[in-house]
């Protein structure tokens, strides 16, 4: 974001003011502390030299706005002390690569794990002009290896004792062709403009596993272990073949990827689709819709980090 100076700015600056009275622009060179408001107080290590609060926390709330092609938002939520989700969004024309990764809080440095996974998988997809499910699988395997390597990096012994771990969900859109892949409980949905929505991923979670084995879904989902994930990326994960899918859209709609910080409040695909469609209608733009969905999770309690990405996909014959 850039701001141009107003006519009064120079006078205010000369008078030593921290903010321009006319336009409100901050005049001191260094940013003010968002906690105590002291101008220029944020030190090189990111902490305020006055109140001590960590002032620079870029990952607390990040947005990626690719206009009508795609948008994504990640947010710390209300209860976690940092954002351990990470996202990657790259567009070329209407081609889109998106990755969402959710760090496992019980592991050490999960925020590093998720960022490593998102960047590794994203960078690999960016090199592939045509993407099929096999390429998505290769990107996830590369992400897994990069996250596993974190356990033996750095001096902190906790890295090895409780190695960094995370989930991943990847989607690559090339025209009307969509490839997805995932490990863990981060999800992808297909929301056609009309008709029932489809959850494209199946959580690698205890609840999903026992329901598949024949357990009563209601009982299984009430179990404290329900959300424990059964597959993840990390040094202790063993060989995890990523699950993938590919399809070609025949009707226009939206591809939606998100971490459990959002879908936990709307576990049913139908309810999820209703809320997303209502937000798309009321907000107009993709980025506003993504923001509104993060706000919704925050208003519902924001118990976990929240990440959501929206990508409109059109059938080939409708495309210009």
């Amino acid at each position, binding site marked *: 974001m850039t701001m141009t100076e107003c006519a009064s700015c120079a006078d205010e600056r000369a008078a030593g003011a921290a903010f321009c009275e006319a336009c409100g622009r901050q005049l001191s060179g260094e940013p003010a502390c968002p906690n105590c408001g002291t101008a220029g107080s944020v030190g090189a290590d990111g902490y305020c030299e006055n109140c*001590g*609060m960590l002032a620079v*926390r870029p990952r607390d709330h990040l947005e990626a706005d690719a206009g009508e092609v795609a948008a994504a938002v990640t947010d710390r939520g209300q*209860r976690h002390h940092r954002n351990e989700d990470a996202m990657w969004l790259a567009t070329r024309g209407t081609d889109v690569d998106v990755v969402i990764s959710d760090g496992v809080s019980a592991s050490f440095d999960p925020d590093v794990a998720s960022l490593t996974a998102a960047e590794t998988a994203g960078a690999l997809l960016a090199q592939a002009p045509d993407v099929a499910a096999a390429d998505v699988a290769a990107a996830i395997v590369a992400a897994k290896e990069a996250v596993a390597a974190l356990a033996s990096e750095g001096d902190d012994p906790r890295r090895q004792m409780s190695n960094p771990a995370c989930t991943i969900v990847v989607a690559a859109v090339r025209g009307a062709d969509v490839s997805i892949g995932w490990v863990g409980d981060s999800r992808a949905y297909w929301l056609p403009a009309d008709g029932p929505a489809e959850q494209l991923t199946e959580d690698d979670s205890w609840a999903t596993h026992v329901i598949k084995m024949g357990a009563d879904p209601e009982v299984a989902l009430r179990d404290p272990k329900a959300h424990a994930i059964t597959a993840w990326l990390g040094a202790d994960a063993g060989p995890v073949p990523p699950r993938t899918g590919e399809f070609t859209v025949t009707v226009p709609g939206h591809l939606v990827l998100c971490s459990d910080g959002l879908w936990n409040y709307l576990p049913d695909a139908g309810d999820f689709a209703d809320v997303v469609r209502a937000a798309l209608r009321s907000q107009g733009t993709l980025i506003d819709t993504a923001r509104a969905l993060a706000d919704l999770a925050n208003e519902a309690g924001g118990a976990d980090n929240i990440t959501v990405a929206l990508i409109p996909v059109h059938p080939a014959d409708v495309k210009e």
Partner: protein
Amino acid sequence: MPYTAEAFQNEFLALGATEVNAIVTVTSSGAEGGHRTSGATEIIIVDASGSMQAEGRISAARQAAKAAVDCIDDGVHFAIIAGVSTAQQLYPAPGELAVASAQTRADAIRSIDRLQASGGTAMGAWLLLASQLFGLRPGDIAHAILLTDGDNGERSGYLETVLASIAGQFTCDCRGVGVNWKVSELRKIAEAMLGTVDIVAHPSGLAQAFQEMMTAAMGKTSADVQLKVWTPVNASVRFVKLVEPQVMDLTGKRIEDGPRAGRYPLGSWGAESRDYHLCVDVPAGSAGDEMLAARVSVMEGDDVLVQARIRAVWTEDTALSTRISREVAHYTGQAELAEAIQDGIKAREHGDDVTATLKFGRAAQLAHESGNTATEELLATVVDIEDAATGTVRLRRKVNAEDEMALDTRSTKTVRVGRSQ
């Protein structure tokens, strides 16, 4: 970079919590590859009061002073003070320092033979003379050894006045020979001068004690290292304590240094590692807030040698906020151990056997739990430990004065926390 500093803590606080604790381990591989960054001056102060004639103490003190002189490296400045009712410089000429060489060491040893015991004990005057001699070499690593066998004979309050005026100018290791000196008096000097205190019960042990002190002193490479602690607005440092290798409260030694920061003197440093316990009170934050509760800098003059950060992160997750930091817990226990022993000794002196038994019992328990076997063995000379795990002890009817004094002086000795999980 020869210095490292690492903070050990559970940074997660429950909502509403305002007390932040951390152990900061400062390690130096010895400045400049083990070479001194400045000169060094050594002063040996030997009590030559009349009482030193007993038990052959004065001849043992002569041997000890000679052994110490032998340990002084070439090029180090040194002097020897004979402590009587006034301070008399034994070597070299009054008001001068010698530069150590084979020749000066031999001269010093000859002059030590002239040391005769007669007169009183005036520790304030001895230290004041040492301070004047150290003043000839500002910036040097300045270290003194003080040996005594009795109570200070100066008017009450004089020693305290002297200590207040000379604190920070040099470090002073104090040794008491025999059992007629006061632990509290030498501890007062050692604490003010950032040194150690110990008992040498029998004169025959003096030479070895002096050799050890001098060898340790010769290993120091930096003269005056300080801990600078920055805390945020509306926060305050509750305490700063050295907790390893011994417990020493540094809180009262704070010198303000710029906004929201103060310095605590650490004395001289060689190739060694020490642990400090910092406790900071901060204003409470909201869930998810992360605060820098203290920025700890190891300083030499204006140079920042290394920094460590003490953080506070508020969370609703009780699984995080209730986690115990092993380092903080261990050293909190070691400080309580020293206090329990000193309280127990005081209670016994006042004839309060009930309190003494309770305090020694707690001490036995803490020493046992933390693996401080040296202290546990010293405790066993004063009380019968029936069950260390539960802290069940019985006061002994007869206790040797030297055993109780050894327990008192060494009560502040700690053991390092085991870092492996």
